[in-house]
């Protein structure tokens, strides 16, 4: 199972992922998932710490899968967060705004 | 934890006697409701001030007839989101005419101080490294009120009629 940490950025609420170099990034593409459970827990712990440091809110481990060469969250809800509203494809990450 | 009353930090005068613990020889005590109900005459016979601490599941009706014997009622907030004690404080002040100290204990936060004060609390036990400043901040925010409560702050409606 491949996992990443998802959260909302505190200041603007934008959905972010814990990506390379332990930075919070806005796109799942910049976010190599982990298959190791202990690494996943370590990542989540970083998320919890980042919440305590007022960087993000609500860190959560989510499952992702590769779909046509890109990573997509498995759960509908998280897929929605990674993409933007399905009824307004002109908005959100899918539209790059 | 610091105790704040009348805008200043005060010294704790009451010894907290939990459950069935032995009473100190002398001095003011703060006991639970059950202890008060069980040991009422013994407590009065001590001749010192008595406070009763109510949990958020204990309505002040249980001590309504005893209030003349009490100088403090402490109302507990097990979590700041549990708002029962706001009603209890108003009942103590406005229904039962209690003049003694009504103390907020438990999960007491700066952001709730104002509501508590408006409901009739006059003493606050809360963890803060600057309780007096917090008090000033909490009181400075709002200066218009719509609800007539026992704190006698004039409401917008009353001021309009003047």
């Amino acid at each position, binding site marked *: 199972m491949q996992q990443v940490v998802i959260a909302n950025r505190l*200041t603007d609420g934008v959905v972010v992922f814990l990506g390379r170099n332990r930075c919070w990034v806005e796109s799942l593409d910049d976010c190599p998932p982990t298959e190791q459970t202990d690494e996943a827990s370590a990542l989540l712990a970083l998320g919890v710490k980042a919440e305590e440091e007022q960087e993000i809110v609500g860190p959560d481990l989510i499952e992702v899968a590769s779909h046509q060469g890109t990573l997509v969250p498995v759960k509908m809800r998280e897929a*929605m967060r990674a993409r933007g509203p399905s009824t307004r494809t002109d908005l959100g990450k899918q539209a790059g*705004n | 934890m610091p105790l704040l009353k009348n805008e200043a930090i005060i010294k704790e005068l009451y010894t907290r006697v939990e459950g069935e613990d032995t009473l100190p020889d002398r001095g003011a005590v703060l006991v639970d409701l059950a202890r008060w109900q069980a040991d009422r005459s013994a407590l009065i016979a001590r001749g010192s001030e008595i406070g009763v601490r109510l949990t958020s599941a204990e309505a002040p009706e249980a001590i309504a007839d005893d209030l003349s014997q009490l100088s403090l009622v402490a109302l507990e907030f097990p979590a700041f989101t549990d708002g029962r004690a*706001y009603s209890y404080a108003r009942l103590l002040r406005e229904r039962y005419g209690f003049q003694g100290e009504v103390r907020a204990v438990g999960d007491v936060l700066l952001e709730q101080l104002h509501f508590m004060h408006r409901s009739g609390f006059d003493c606050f036990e809360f963890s803060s490294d600057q309780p007096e400043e917090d008090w000033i901040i909490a009181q400075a925010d709002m200066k*218009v009120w*719509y609800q007539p409560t026992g704190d006698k702050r004039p409401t917008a409606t009353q001021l309009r*009629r003047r």
Partner: protein
Amino acid sequence: MYEYDEFDADFVNQRALQFGRQVESRLSGKLSEDQFRPIRLMNGLYLQLHAYMLRVNVPYGCLNSAQMRKLAHIARVYDKDYGHLTTRQNMQFNWIKLSDMPEILLELASVEMHGIQSSGNCIRNITADEYAGVAAEEIEDPRVYCELLRQWSSLHPEFSFLPRKFKIAVTGSEKDRAVVKAHDIGLRLHRNENGEEGFEVFVGGGLGRTPFIGKSIRAFLPTEHVLSYCEAILRVYNQLGRRDNKYKARIKILVHEMGSEAFSELVEKEWAEIKQGALALPQAEIERVREFFAPPAYEALPEEDPDFEAQRKAEPGFALWARQQLAAHKRAGYAIVNVSCSPVGKPPGDISSAQMEGFADLADTYNFGEMRVTHNQNLVLTDVRKRDLFDLWKKLVALGLATANHGLIGDTICCPGLDYCALATARSIPLAEKISERFADPERQAEIGEIYLNMSGCINACGHHHVGNIGIVGVDKKNTELYQLMLGGSAEEDASLGKILGPGFDEDGIVDAVETVINIYIDMREPNEKFIETYRRLGPEPFKDRLYGAPA
């Protein structure tokens, strides 16, 4: 419309500045998210799937053009150029930054608006009949009491940490457009045999996980006691409402568990103690507030306008719109205009900033500068001269706000669902879009006639699915959206809760199922029988049989 005086203005300004301080405390870490959450919720700020969402109160649905322009400005500057009308007569913005909030609240305060108590476990925005003050069949204007309740409930020190949220609705009409029986407190203004004004009081209604129709606990409450009586209800609830289980914390569960009679006894007992106190409303105060809702400067007009008649004959599109969107006004020569914000194939209740501004202009030109927001996620112009209707319609067409589907199947109530909402289990907007497309033909909609289709993206029922004649609720079954169909709900005077018909459907299946239900109704209805009447006459069986196959 009510206008703020210095006290009200100071109040919202102070509150905006206070939130500025609290946001600072949050950003600096003085407040943890757990401590901050209730504070931001009590200022209308949620954290949803994509960003923060701000819900701005529209007190009992009343809005003026300056406020609407301000909402447009907020949509444009701080959000993504649109807002969403909610089922509680409010407007919400989906893409708000926490760091912008102090500024946004000051902007709102400048036009007498705010987000205070639009969320949180406190008394929420009071809702009311969207035709208040103008409906032909109205007994009394409920807005006077809505405003008094609004002030009384604003930052109530005793009732800001209730077991759960608390919603109050008021109507002054025989016809209930405020769904008073689906609220924690529902107030129905009426007159007794002596001609005095008073309220029938309902408590314990509500939808969500465990839906209940409100119970009447008092047939007649003199109006001067409305605040003290509500205070008594809230005080009983604040002390006895369940706090051990969030799903059982609403007043409806308390009323249900103890029985409405026992509950009402406690309320009466509490009320007896406080009714003569400081909350008793002096007649002068009622009159002071009533003046704000005095009728505008109506002209004396004949009931019928010859041009209006001629224009309808000449322009079929206008005739269709006029047939569907107008309601009877209490003044001769005027009409109430319903403006649909559920165009075919678009998210119900979404409105762009350009539309908001255009609509504000129309309100200025034709409607004394005011407008209403409805719980059906639409807008209303309450006081339009019949002779202006044709011009108004042309301008609504240009704004994309002239869809003629009021009270028809295309005018769905629909919550944001999984496209936005953090609590959702399924999407709801795409369904509403598909259904309105399936029934896009206005003639077909008109032939089907009055019907209310409500849908929610989870059991919380913000889309009022239980009281839709047809209700749909989305559930998540093994990471696939599944939709349950219920029939027989009603939100009106004869309020009833719909019943689930059978197993759920997938996204396309549910659209087909709705169509099947409609076809059965058309086959089986008697002349002039509305959908709900046919359903009540026949019961669920014929629908079940056709959808799931007759039992062997």
